[in-house]
């Protein structure tokens, strides 16, 4: 094989999570009462728009979650097949043109020259000027052609997008006939909007650095795209830790009452009373020591960064299950008084069965709402934690590390704004889509909203 599949821990978990979600979708599609709230969610135009935007992020994130190592040339007389120590993902492969074309240092978006003046020779005479970039706009003979070249590339992108518009239009028409209640046209229009923005960027990126380059000359667009995976992982894998803890403890506290309730309440009041950032910081610092001490566990730097990311998710989950547990405790307390639970008791149904069969399904809507609502908060938290220094591995590109690196350059003149701008745009769109989608999910699932008790 020319490459060796090299799944990282978070890759495996992410794909497992994807599988679980697929299973859940399949299960919901067979049970009308489970599918109904989701159908209500997707009847809202906002939800359809957000789902398309979010789907684009997820696609990038998953392309970035298939890791492998490329095989190297076998040295004469050596045993076994050598593989490159660099772990690449499918996304890296697709973005090879961005990843490998490094400039020397900062350059503005779509620039052809470097940000800083340098001494170099023209026709044997030393000149001090902004040198031409190694790759950005290098194919241009005359820099005056740059605006025309850029316009041509944008035009090409829009032309392809117009072609896609026809296809999308046809698909929307067909889908609308099959399921008229879902706002396909809003989804299609959003997809078209995303394409109209992405395709010109794609065509520009073959020749220019669309969002400029950073201090070591790396393409900022590439960094922003790589950060998406980290955000998705923090937002989703954390819930893998949070959900079982919050569900099990919350429901048990509300159902069993008595000393179990007291113990669980004590546990979450205690955890809650420790300031969140400090608890996370303390735990991350401790794990850092463990990771540093066991360098032999990891064969590559990516694995080490990956474990740190995983530990960060686990710690975030361990510190944030309390909110969900408190909600579920209240709900389980209410449910356990209802007649159908009393009847189950009278029939002699075992506690575990009552819990799993009669209580858990009836609090599922709270769990789903909480899970979707938590996502955006976690994505934002990552940036803050990385700023404090207890976030992802400093070598990993995430929105937090991007902002952090750019912040230090605020004092420069002219200001280096493009890293911040790229992180802002990509993060804002992701979090906004997640927030609006969460609202739609809440409206679809919360029975109080549906009955008109609470204004949406």
């Amino acid at each position, binding site marked *: 094989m020319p490459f060796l599949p090299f799944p990282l821990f978070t890759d495996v978990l992410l794909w497992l999570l994807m599988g679980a979600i697929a299973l859940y979708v399949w299960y919901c599609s067979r049970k009308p009462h489970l599918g109904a709230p989701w159908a209500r969610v997707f009847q809202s135009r906002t939800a359809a728009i957000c789902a398309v935007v979010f789907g684009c992020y997820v696609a990038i994130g998953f392309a970035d979650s298939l890791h492998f190592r490329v095989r190297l040339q076998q040295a004469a007389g050596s045993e076994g097949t050598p593989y490159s120590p660099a772990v690449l993902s499918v996304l890296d492969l697709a973005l090879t043109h961005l990843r490998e074309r490094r400039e020397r240092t900062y350059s503005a978006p779509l620039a052809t020259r470097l940000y800083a003046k340098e001494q170099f020779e023209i026709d044997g005479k030393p000149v001090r000027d902004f040198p031409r970039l190694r790759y950005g706009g290098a194919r241009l003979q005359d820099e005056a052609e740059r605006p025309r070249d850029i316009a041509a590339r944008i035009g090409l992108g829009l032309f392809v997008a117009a072609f896609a518009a026809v296809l999308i239009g046809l698909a929307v028409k067909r889908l609308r006939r099959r399921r008229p209640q879902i706002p396909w046209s809003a989804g299609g229009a959003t997809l078209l909007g995303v394409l109209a923005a992405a395709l010109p960027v794609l065509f520009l990126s073959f020749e220019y650095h669309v969002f400029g380059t950073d201090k070591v000359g790396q393409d900022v667009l590439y960094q922003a795209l790589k950060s998406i995976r980290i955000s998705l992982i923090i937002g989703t894998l954390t819930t893998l830790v949070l959900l079982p803890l919050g569900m099990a403890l919350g429901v048990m506290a509300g159902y069993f009452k008595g000393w179990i309730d007291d113990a669980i309440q*004590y546990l979450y009041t205690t955890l809650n009373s420790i300031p969140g950032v400090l608890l996370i910081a303390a735990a991350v610092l401790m794990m850092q020591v463990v990771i540093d001490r066991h360098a032999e566990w990891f064969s590559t730097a990516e694995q080490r960064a990956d474990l740190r990311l995983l530990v960060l998710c686990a710690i975030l989950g361990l510190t944030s299950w309390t909110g969900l547990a408190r909600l579920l405790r209240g709900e389980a307390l209410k449910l356990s008084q209802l007649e159908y639970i009393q009847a189950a008791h009278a029939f002699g149904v075992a506690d575990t069965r009552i819990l799993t069969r009669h209580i858990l399904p009836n609090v599922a809507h709270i769990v789903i709402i909480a899970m979707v609502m938590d996502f955006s908060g976690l994505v934002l938290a990552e940036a*803050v934690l990385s700023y404090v220094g207890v976030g992802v591995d400093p070598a990993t590109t995430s929105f937090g590390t991007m902002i952090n690196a750019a912040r230090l350059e605020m004092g420069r003149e002219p200001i280096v704004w493009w890293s911040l701008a790229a992180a802002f745009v990509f993060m804002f769109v992701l979090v906004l889509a997640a*927030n609006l989608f969460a609202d739609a999910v809440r409206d679809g699932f919360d029975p109080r909203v549906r009955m008109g008790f609470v204004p949406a």
Partner: protein
Amino acid sequence: MLAYIVRRVLYAIPILVGVNLITFVLFFVVNTPDDMARMQLGAKRVTSEAIEKWKAERGYDKPLLFNAAAPRGAKLTQTVFYEKSVRLFAFDFGAAEDNRDIANEIRMRMWPSLALAVPVLIVGLAVNITFALFMAFFRATYLDFWGVVLCVALMSISALFYIIGGQYVASKLWHLVPISGYAGGFDAAKFLVLPVLIGVLAGIGSGGRWYRTLFLEEMSRDYVRTARAKGLAESVVLFRHVLKNAMIPILTGVVVVIPLLFMGSLLSESFFGIPGLGSYTIDAIQAQDFAVVRSMVFIGSVLYILGLLLTDLSYTLVDPRIRLQ
């Protein structure tokens, strides 16, 4: 009432013990004093003498829980657990890495933190309530809709961008206020204006939306219908009846955070160079000064529990229907 307060204070003790145990386990069991020494001394190859010296200087050279070598009566007290964790209960925090007294440092840094956090809370509350009332007054119109959209958009921006953007516009572009720093007395005002404004702005999204929900929930009550039925103007209904009743959840929600204001704000303080407890905490985390982090964890949980107690008491004050037993 008094009995209730006493019981609540007693109930706080096991929670503080729990907090203490968690921090003890995190700081001394998961990672031993040897690891701490190695981390602080930096270099990969540290001699064991250097580690021993580092531990002895800070009193980490004793056994964790039980000191068999100590004289009778001191077998439990001459331990790391007693000296570093139990003593926190007496607010005896010991010294930081730079040998400064932590308790003293906290007393000094408390005031800049409050000078930033209190205006943010008060101005923020006023702005959020005004904005939420505005949306509630125009409910189910385009103004309300776009107000909510604006709230969600504001919520979706990371706090870091508010600070960086604010610093850039107000300090670099317009040169209105110094970019960062702090001064005592009334000179502090010019350093505090921008952080306060940014703190308020960053809170409008979630606060405005949350209060709007509270107002709308209150407006679906029966007494509102009665008030309208007897012919009161909508503005009178809103300001005299709805606002008053909605203040109950709003105020009790605010009370819980009041004690935590002492802790300061992590981000604003470190970005604006305000020497408060928030920047103290961040510096401690970045310098891995565990004594300070431990103290801040303890103080934070004491203040949180205090906030919970105050919340329960404030319920009885603002809502005469609630009696505590």
